C-alpha cells in the first residue's frame, strides 16, 4: 500500500487532493536543490548527474539551482563546493561541522531539515543510493512532504509542478507522481539513470555557509569503523563503458568464465542476471536490473539472458545492446539493437578471439604509424 498508489486510482478528476491548491506558507518555497552526496572524500557521481537534471528544471522554472554540501569542514567539502559550480550550480549551501564527518542518519537529517526550513527550496533531489535513500525517507517524513523514489524522468509541468516519473509494478508500467500541495517536492534518482552533464571549468560563486546547531552529544549512533570493500568486490559496473553479462542460458557457473574472458579481452566490466546471483554463481554486486545495478554503457552484450522486464529496466540506458540468444523470440529481441541467434557457449570464445585479434591488430597499426 505504499507508494506508488494503485494504478487503478482514477487519474485527476473528482478528488480534491489532486487539485493544486498550494497553501500560502508554501508559496515562499523557491529554487531547485541537489544534495551533493560525499563519503570519505569522494563525491558520488550521481550528484553530478542530478545537477544536470536540476539545471534543466531550474531553467524551465526560471529559478536558481543550488547544491547542498554537508560534511566536516575541510578539503573534501571545499572540493565538492568548487566542483558543484563546474556542474552548473548558481549557489551552494554548505553545512560544515564535525558531527557530519561520516554519514549518520540522525545528524544528516537534522542538518538537511534545518537547511530546508531556513532557505525553503521548492524541489529537492537526492541520489537513490544507500545514503540518499536513507536520508530522503527520514527528511521527507520529518518535513511531512511527498517523496518519489527512483525516478527515471523529471520534468516540470505547465503550472510549475514537479512531475516525477518512475517505474511501478516491477517495471511493467510507469507512473508520473506529483506532490502538488506540499513543499519541497522531493525525488530520488538512481545512479546512471540520468546522463552525466559536461563539466565546465568555473570559478567558485555564491556560497551560503549555514551554522548548524547539532551537538555530537545529542547523536546516539557512533561509528566504530569502516570496512572498505576488498578490491575484488569492487565492481565499476554502473559506470563502465562496456559491459558483458551472462544469464541462465550459460547453463553452469563454469561457462560464466566465458563472459569474464570476453570482458577481460575488451577491457569491459562483467555482470549477470538475477538467477545467477541467487544460485550463488556470481556475487550480488554484479547483478544488473531492477534490484541490481542500472548501467548506461556505450555497449552492452547480453549472453543467454532472456530480457525479463526486471532486467530490461536496468540496461535500457545503454547506447547499444547486443543479444546473444538461441531463441530468436526471446523478449530481449524487443529492446536489443543487434542480435546473434546462436549458442552463447560456443560463440563467446569465438567472439573473444575475434575481439582480441581486431583490437591488437589496430594497436599494432597505430604503433607502427
Amino acid at each position, binding site marked *: 500500500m505504499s507508494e506508488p498508489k494503485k494504478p487503478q486510482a482514477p487519474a485527476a478528476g473528482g478528488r480534491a487532493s489532486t487539485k493544486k491548491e498550494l497553501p500560502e506558507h508554501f508559496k515562499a518555497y523557491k529554487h531547485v536543490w541537489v544534495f551533493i552526496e560525499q563519503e570519505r572524500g569522494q563525491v558520488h557521481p550521481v550528484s553530478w548527474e542530478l545537477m544536470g537534471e536540476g539545471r534543466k528544471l531550474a531553467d524551465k522554472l526560471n529559478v536558481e539551482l543550488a547544491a547542498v554540501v554537508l560534511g566536516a569542514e575541510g578539503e573534501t567539502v571545499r572540493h565538492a563546493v568548487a566542483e558543484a559550480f563546474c556542474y552548473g550550480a548558481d549557489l551552494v549551501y554548505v553545512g560544515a561541522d564535525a558531527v557530519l564527518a561520516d554519514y549518520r542518519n540522525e545528524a544528516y537529517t537534522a542538518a538537511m531539515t534545518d537547511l530546508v526550513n531556513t532557505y525553503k527550496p521548492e524541489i529537492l533531489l537526492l541520489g537513490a543510493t544507500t545514503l540518499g535513500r536513507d536520508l530522503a525517507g527520514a527528511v521527507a*517524513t520529518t518535513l511531512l512532504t511527498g517523496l518519489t523514489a527512483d525516478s527515471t524522468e523529471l520534468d516540470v509541468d505547465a503550472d510549475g509542478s514537479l*512531475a516525477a516519473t518512475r517505474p511501478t509494478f516491477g517495471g511493467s508500467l510507469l507512473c508520473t507522481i506529483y506532490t502538488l500541495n506540499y513543499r519541497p517536492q522531493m525525488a530520488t534518482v538512481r545512479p546512471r539513470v540520468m546522463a552525466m552533464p559536461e563539466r565546465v571549468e568555473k570559478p567558485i560563486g555564491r556560497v551560503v555557509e549555514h551554522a548548524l546547531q547539532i551537538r555530537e552529544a545529542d547523536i546516539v549512533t557512533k561509528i566504530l569503523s569502516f570496512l572498505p570493500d576488498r578490491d575484488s568486490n569492487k565492481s565499476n559496473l554502473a559506470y563502465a563503458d562496456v559491459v558483458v553479462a551472462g544469464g541462465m542460458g550459460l547453463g553452469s557457473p563454469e561457462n560464466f568464465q566465458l563472459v569474464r574472458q570476453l570482458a577481460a579481452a575488451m577491457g569491459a566490466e562483467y555482470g549477470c542476471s538475477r538467477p545467477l546471483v541467487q544460485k550463488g554463481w556470481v556475487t550480488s554486486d554484479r547483478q544488473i536490473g531492477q534490484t541490481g545495478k542500472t548501467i548506461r554503457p556505450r555497449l552492452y552484450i547480453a549472453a543467454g539472458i532472456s530480457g525479463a522486464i526486471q532486467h530490461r529496466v536496468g540496461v535500457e540506458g545503454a547506447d547499444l545492446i547486443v543479444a546473444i540468444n538461441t531463441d530468436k523470440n526471446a523478449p530481449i529481441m524487443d529492446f536489443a539493437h543487434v542480435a546473434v541467434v546462436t549458442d552463447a557457449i560456443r560463440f563467446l570464445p569465438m567472439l573473444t578471439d575475434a575481439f582480441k585479434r581486431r583490437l591488437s591488430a589496430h594497436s599494432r597499426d597505430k604503433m607502427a604509424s
Partner: protein
Amino acid sequence: MHIVVCIKQVPDSAQIRVHPVTNTIMRQGVPTIINPYDLFALEEALRLRDRFGGAVTVLTMGPPSAEDSLRKALTFGADRAVLLTDRFFAGSDTLATSFALATAITRIGETWGAPDIVFTGKQTIDGDTAQVGPGIAKRLGLIQVTYVAKVAELDPEGRTITLERRAEGGTQVLKSQLPCLIAMLEGTNEVRRGTMADALSAARAEIVKWNAKDAGVEDLGKCGLKGSPTIVKRVFAPAARSEKAKVIEAPEGGSLADALIADVFARQPHLEADLTALARGF
C-alpha cells in the same frame, strides 16, 4: 525482548500483466507473496528472539487477504500477528503508510510491551521505495539504521546494539541504542522452515485484526489518500522500441563473430578507437 517485524503482502511481480489497452494491472491469477526482502528481517528477528528470549510480533497493513502472509509468518515461528486493515488506509503513499504502521506499533507496544527493535525489509518489490522504514522510525522517534547486513552485538541490559551497515564502497560498523528501527539487507540469512509444532500453532492462531480506530488512529486525515502528499496522475506503459533487434548472420564463408564486431563498430565508431587504446594500455 519484544521485536516487531513489518511485512507486506505483495503481488508476485514476475507474474504481473498489464492490460494492453487500459494499462491497468490484470490481477487475475497473480499470486501474492510475502515481500521477499521482509523475510530477511523476519529471520533476523527470530534469531534474536531465540537468543535473548521474548516475542516476535509481525505486522502488516493491507487488505483482509493479507492474513495469508501473516499466517505464513507464524509458520516460520513468529509469536503473534497483527493485521491492520481498513478502507481508510486505501491509497496510502509512503508517508501515510508509515503513519498508520507507526500508530499500530504504538498500540502494539501498549498491548504487549514496547518493542525493543522494529524490523522492516530493505524495500518492497511493488512499492520499491525503501521509504516506509525510515518513515516509521521518524514517526516513532526511533534511531533508524537501514541496509543492515548483520546484527553484530546486542546488549539487552546496556540497551546497546552494534550493527554492520552496507554503505557505498564498504561496510559501516556502528553502535547505537535500543529501541531502534532496522531495515534489513537481503541475502543476509535464510528464513527458517518452522517445525511441525510451529505449523500447527500457526494454523490454529487467531490473527489480531485492527481497523484504524482499534489501532488508535485519531486523525483519519493522515491516512489513505487524504494523508498522502503524493498524487499519481498518470500510469502508462513504457514506449516500445519500434524495431526489433537486427539479427546478424554469418556472411558466406565468413565468421559470425567478425560480422557482429563489424556491425557494432559501425554503429559505435568511437568505441573501437577507445577500446584499442585501452587494449594497448594492458
